[in-house]
């Protein structure tokens, strides 16, 4: 691994070296390193680029890292990864994509992740997006996630995109069986001319299923953000979606929460708020001795923390 790849790896996976446990590192379109464990198997897909990650039922406290690194300008790829998480598992999956583009051509990674979460399994999924490079080439990522949560299972998705990605369209859809729970926490910061779109569709099919989709974002400069969140309550279930955005400079933010109840026992809430940093927050921090810029930074960092 070279320094650029090392930096990307640090940013997307908070890893300084190859991780513990199972992992698959994809660098510039190739599988660069892989490790499997007794409980977690990783195999190449036969018909498509990508891998299957198979986690044995009952696997507890294990993790899988699947970072994707791109440092070659002009590389465009679509990768299909499927996760089969057995019954009663309790695992952490860390995915992430780092692009370093100092060339003039667009580098693009589109990942399609499908999660099949078995009965009563618990999954924590963490995904970070990061890009840098001083070239004019665009850095584009379009992740798509498809989630199927079986009875009593629980999944927490944490996605973060703080820096450097010029354009991103994230699509997430989930289907929940009885008593399944999905929690999504999304954090986005865009600046310059960046564009970020997220689109969630959650079908609460099972009795007692619940979903909570929370997005916090900051849009600076001339950047644009769009947030769509659709929750369909098809049974006795509860759903909550919340989008909270800070808008700065000449940015544009659209938030469209949509809730549909198809059952009399569905209880659904949506909240969306867009606003600039409250003047009194800036003033309070300035009375503590911070400059206006420092105050702004503290407020934004706290908000996205």
């Amino acid at each position: 691994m070279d320094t650029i790849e090392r930096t990307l790896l640090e940013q997307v996976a908070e890893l300084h070296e190859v991780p513990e446990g199972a992992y698959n590192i994809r660098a510039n379109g190739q599988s660069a390193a892989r490790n499997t464990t007794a409980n977690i198997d990783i195999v190449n897909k036969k018909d498509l680029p990508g891998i299957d990650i198979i986690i044995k039922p009952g696997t507890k406290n294990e993790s899988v890292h699947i970072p994707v690194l791109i440092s070659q300008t002009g590389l465009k790829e679509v990768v299909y990864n499927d996760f089969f998480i057995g019954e009663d598992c309790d695992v952490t999956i860390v995915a992430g994509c780092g692009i370093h583009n100092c060339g003039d051509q667009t580098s693009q990674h589109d990942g399609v992740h499908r999660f099949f979460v078995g009965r009563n399994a618990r999954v924590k999924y963490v995904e970070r997006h990061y890009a840098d490079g001083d070239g004019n080439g665009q850095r584009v990522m379009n992740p798509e996630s498809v989630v199927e949560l079986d009875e009593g299972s629980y999944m927490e998705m944490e996605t973060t995109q703080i820096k450097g990605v010029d354009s991103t369209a994230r699509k997430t859809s989930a289907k929940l069986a009885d008593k399944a729970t999905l929690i999504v926490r999304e954090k986005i910061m865009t600046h310059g001319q960046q564009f970020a779109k997220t689109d969630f569709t959650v079908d609460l099919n099972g009795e007692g299923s619940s979903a909570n989709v929370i997005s916090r974002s900051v849009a600076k400069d001339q950047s644009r953000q769009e947030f769509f969140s659709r929750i369909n309550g098809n049974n006795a279930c509860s759903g909550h979606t919340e989008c909270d955005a800070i808008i700065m400079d000449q940015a544009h933010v659209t938030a469209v929460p949509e809730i549909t109840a198809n059952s009399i026992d569905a209880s659904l809430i949506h909240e969306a708020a867009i606003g600039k940093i409250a003047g009194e927050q800036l003033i309070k921090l300035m009375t503590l001795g911070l400059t206006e810029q420092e105050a702004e930074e503290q407020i934004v960092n706290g908000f996205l923390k």
Partner: protein
Amino acid sequence: MLELKNISFEVNTPEHSKEILKDISLTINERFVAITGPNGGGKSTLAKVIAGIIKPTTGRIILDGEDITDLDITQRAQKGVSFAFQQPVRFKGLTVRDLITLAAGKPIGVSEACDYLSEVGLCAKDYINREVNASLSGGELKRIEIAMIIARGTKLSVFDEPEAGIDLWSFSNLIQVFEKMHEKINGSIMIISHQERILNIADKIIVLAGGQVQAAGTRDEVLPHLLAGTGSVCSVLADKL
């Protein structure tokens, strides 16, 4: 020492102009200075003028001989002015610890942050990592606001109705907080208040009504008139006291 010289503040709306502060001249040099007076009298506006949040229409503000009228909020804070808001501000994401640390102006350990919180009667371990958001009650926010001023420890501290929302049990502690604070910073503490118990510890009392100084003097000079509801103080205020 803080000197206010001929401070006026006027707001202009399309319909009319309104003078909220009228030619106020004051010297604040004592340990505890209480500012009292009816609602709408101009107390909070005066505090904001001192902190630099509001620019006066006319007049000068002198801190320890230096004219700070043209300094902004940040510069005044750095010169040693602290201001506890009447209505504390909530922050999504920032924790109690973050705010105390920012107030201290340097990295502080958990135990130091906890000390400040316990001084205002908050059990530190329950609060230190709480977000300063809508989940905190008004009284809790007020105490955190005071803890920030203690953490700053500057030579001039202005508290705008610190007792509001604080239950009576902790009220005597609040006075102890001010006394302890004074020992440490050896500066002036200005407290906007309607509470007799606060007025009772004041070295100087200033009565502000209708944007004007109605009375200013030692406690012994001003308090009897206030309590009797005589003199220039209006009866609304007398009722409050």
